[in-house]
């Protein structure tokens, strides 16, 4: 990875910690009721996966409740920079626990994988006393592009060159929307239109796999990283529009943030505040 792309400023890792921490705090608070719904599920539905592979039966209720309650609290503390050597690891473990548990009831979610990986890096990073923690930003950036690259390789391994003619993509879009429709869930109102545009599907398939396989190029130069991040964002917006699948961590830009100069966010906000503050002071009082 070039120095140009990686943490040119140590401030980036602090911004990333705050962004990821805030995201996890909000996500885990919003999703808490759904995760607690599993307390009412029949134990026969439980099929432990990933880090919880060793479980033969659901967790005791109090363990799940503690995990669900502790995660947003520790994530908030992590965002605020409070007792990072405790709050960051607890957030990583808690998030991994609740998301793995959620996905151990027959539905493998992909949307939280990158969040969990980034949290593990941040949990390790807080034990590094050196001022230059560029390695942590580099690791998060590699994990981001790695998840896309692996998805692209999987498409080629499983579907081969058939992916490029657009039929695989067309069938995926149709199946996913149909499954939602028969279950009374929200499906995309634009999917029917897209499926009627046969000419568009092959280019869309090529662009999507190009974004995934081309992800490692984002590590070469910050300008390439910016272009790739924009393409990846467009990729997720297209998935949202045509498949009604929302990847919040990616669409909000947090998953892509390790590749971007997010350390400038604070400076930009301060500049805007400074620009408008005199105008506000000059404004005559109303009323």
């Amino acid at each position, binding site marked *: 990875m070039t120095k140009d792309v990686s943490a040119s400023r140590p401030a980036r890792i602090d911004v990333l910690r705050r962004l990821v921490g805030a995201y996890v705090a909000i996500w885990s608070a919003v999703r808490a009721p759904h995760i607690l*719904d599993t307390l009412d599920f029949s134990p026969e539905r439980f099929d432990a996966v990933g880090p919880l592979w060793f479980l033969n039966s659901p967790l005791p209720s109090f363990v799940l409740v503690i995990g669900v309650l502790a995660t947003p609290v520790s994530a908030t503390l992590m965002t605020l920079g409070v007792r990072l050597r405790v709050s960051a690891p607890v957030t990583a473990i808690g998030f991994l626990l609740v998301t793995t548990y959620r996905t151990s009831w027959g539905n493998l979610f992909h949307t939280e994988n990158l969040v969990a990986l980034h949290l593990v890096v941040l949990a390790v990073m807080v034990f590094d006393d050196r001022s230059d923690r560029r390695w942590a930003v580099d690791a998060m950036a590699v994990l981001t592009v790695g998840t896309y690259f692996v998805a692209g390789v999987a498409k080629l391994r499983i579907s081969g060159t058939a992916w490029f003619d657009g039929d*695989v993509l067309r*069938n995926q879009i149709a199946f996913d929307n149909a499954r939602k429709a028969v279950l009374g*869930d929200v499906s995309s109102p634009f999917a029917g239109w897209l499926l009627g545009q046969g000419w568009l599907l092959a280019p869309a398939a090529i662009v999507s796999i190009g974004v995934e396989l081309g992800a490692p190029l984002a590590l070469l130069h910050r300008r390439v990283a910016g272009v790739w991040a924009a393409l990846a964002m467009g990729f997720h917006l297209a998935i949202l529009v045509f498949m009604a699948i929302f990847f919040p961590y990616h669409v909000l830009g947090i998953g892509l943030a390790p590749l971007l100069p997010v350390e400038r966010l604070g400076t930009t906000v301060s500049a805007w505040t400074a620009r408008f503050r005199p105008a506000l002071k000059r404004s005559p009082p109303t009323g």
Partner: protein
Amino acid sequence: MFATDRGEEHYLDTAVMIVDDGSVRRLSPELIAGTDEPVLAAVTLTRGIRRRDAAVMCEEIAARIGGSAVVEVRTEHHNVIDFIADDAPPIGITTHARCGGDD
């Protein structure tokens, strides 16, 4: 994700409410399986049908709806392209359980 070629025809498990005129009203994942996740609801239905628990699931769904709703646990055979692009009806329907109403 989205790597597998799923093909055009699928057997989709679901539960529906039959209204007075015989038409079908779709139910939410929450009513079907007590979850807001559609994939989880689908997995729950599929496992229940395989275990021959469709009648039990049907009663549970009817209880969640309340009143005298008529519920069917069924498998719909769709060409998903035609279904989404043209709102085509199912190619076939297999009813595993029907409950509620005058039961």
